[in-house]
């Protein structure tokens, strides 16, 4: 089991840092799955994490100038680690002006992801900073828990309004209620609602557009649907807020799939990064 990667380009370093920062805002611990082509940050919907799950996929070639991986076995050329994204984020934060950052899997006092950065100095010799971040190696028998979640058979898929706008709305609503109802239809309309004994607040968004999920069968339920009919799901407002607050990816596309009364599935796409976030419904 070997892993080594290197980032030289400052743009890539910056981008990678933003992705890691986003992840660190969403969860305290998660799984980092390394494959020859991709990196995945995975959170599987455990009860302890409030049932939310996350799947973030990065294509290694777009971030790393060098990337070498030797998985646990020839027939399973992968490495699965449990990491604390906050630590990764901290390690990356202090090396933003580095000439070069190397990430490698090492065995120190325990298995570690070691970030080694070469920092520029006025002298001829560089300054070198290393961060050893302890990780847990996930044995192969548990890997099945961290497979890519299936695209749910959703009722409505919709493009999201600018996330900043949405964040402002959700931030205000959070002061009034712990739960939020998100509803949308196939006519490009989406509402964010809260209802308490004292007050009902709804924010309406329209002309958002519905993504054309082409022929992959997953949109079976949405095809024969009345475009005006709303699908709605009630979620923990904190989970949604966390998602909106932490994101630093500046997605080129942001969308949401709603399975009526079951789950909302948020997707952010940005060139080489995709982030999916699942928030379960609460009764």
């Amino acid at each position: 089991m070997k892993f080594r990667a290197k980032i030289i380009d400052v743009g890539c370093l910056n981008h990678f840092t933003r992705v890691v920062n986003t992840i660190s805002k969403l969860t305290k611990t998660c799984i980092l799955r390394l494959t020859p082509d991709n990196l995945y940050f995975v959170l599987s919907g455990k009860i302890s994490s409030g049932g939310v799950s996350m799947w973030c996929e990065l294509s290694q070639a777009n971030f790393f100038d060098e990337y070498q991986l030797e998985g646990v076995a020839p027939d399973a050329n992968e490495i699965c680690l449990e990491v604390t994204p906050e630590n990764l984020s901290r390690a990356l934060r202090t090396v933003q002006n580095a000439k070069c950052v190397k990430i490698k899997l090492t065995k120190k006092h325990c298995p570690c992801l070691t970030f080694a950065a070469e920092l520029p100095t006025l002298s001829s010799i560089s300054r070198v900073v290393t961060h050893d971040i302890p990780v847990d190696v996930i044995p192969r028998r548990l890997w099945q828990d961290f497979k890519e979640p299936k695209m749910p058979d959703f009722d409505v898929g919709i493009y999201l309004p600018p996330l900043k706008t949405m964040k402002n709305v959700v931030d205000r609503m959070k002061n009034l209620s712990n739960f939020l109802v998100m509803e949308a239809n196939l006519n490009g309309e989406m509402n964010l609602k809260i209802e308490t004994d004292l007050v009902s607040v709804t924010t309406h968004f329209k002309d958002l557009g519905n993504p054309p999920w082409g022929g992959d069968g997953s949109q079976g339920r949405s095809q024969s649907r009345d475009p005006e009919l709303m699908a709605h799901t009630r979620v923990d407002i904190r989970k949604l807020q966390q998602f909106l607050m932490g994101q630093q990816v500046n997605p080129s596309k942001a969308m949401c799939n709603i399975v009526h009364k079951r789950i909302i599935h948020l997707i952010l796409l940005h060139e080489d990064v995709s982030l999916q976030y699942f928030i379960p419904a609460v009764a």
Partner: protein
Amino acid sequence: MNCVVTGGNVKVLAKAIHSLSRIGDELYLEPQEGGLALRSVNSSRSAYACFLFSPLFFSRYTSPCGQAFRCKMSIKCVQAVFRSLSSLEKTVEKCHIELDGDKSRLTFTLHCKHGLLKTHNLSFQDSESLLAVFDKDSCSNVLRAQPRLLVDTVLHFPPALEEVTLSVSGERVWFRNHLEDEPEQSKAMLTELCLSSDEFDHFAIGAQSSITFCLKELRGLLVFAESTGLPISVHFDQPGSPVVLSVTDSVLEVNFVLATLSDDSNLRNHNNNSTKRAQSPPPPDDFMNDDIDSYLIAMETSDLAGPPDAVAPRQQTSSRTPTTQPPVADHRRESEEEEEEEEDTERPPNKKFRSLFFGSVCPNDSQLTNQTMKSQEVLASDSEDDTQSGCP
């Protein structure tokens, strides 16, 4: 005492007060012939700071003639006088400090723009002299660096980190975070920064050494040094003897004396870390080495189950360190120490900082005769004495 500070020096004085406030709760003030001394010490007496402003620092300075006068007051009150550093810089033209011994009042008068006067009358208590005993000139290792270098170094460590280990050997300096013996240690992130001697203004290493001290006070001094742009000198010896951080200029002298962890606790910490890491600094050119096989580390998942084998490295380190105790005795002593710590919950922090001022620095007793608390061990008394007399 009667003195006046003008212009940019008001800010220097304010920064000094803020730096001192990172050390202790009380400010010891002593006007002397040679200038005004401001001092502070922390509650466990493991950190001490002294700012000595020479008479030239002031536009007017008169010290009390005759008998020496010393007083102390709550540092928070003095800090309140210089609360907002930014507005201070813009508005205060002159600061007048006057000590009225008869009324027991220390008066700070800030002369601001537009003729505005702000007067703070502070009460004080008489106090003993506060003087740390240290001799930075006898330290075998001296580093001097621009504050920026140390600020950039400290930046890599988390704000919550308490102690940092500084190691020197050959042409390099390492900073790494020091971790207490805790079960969760395996979950803690280790950070290490390697600096080349070129980055220091002065680099004189007499003996390879590795010391551990508190980061908080260093950060405090950095606030001061960075604002004044003055280089910081670090004087140190072996683990257990204090490190002296100093900043000097023609009109002021600053010394921060910090306790360092004594050797046996250092050793213990090292044993829990990887021994390679602790004992010998990693090969300097590790980073430049691009031969993948030389540092990719093969791991088997099955190996990870058991705890790391701590026995072998411990013996190794014991024999390598200049200790008079045979390794076995060392084991026994350490385990006894640990037991004691569990029993004695009243002891302050269970760290092994050896007291700074009292005996550990100056072995020569004659120099200490005027020290009231000559050989007192203040913090976490060195348990060697207890155990040696206690065991059969």
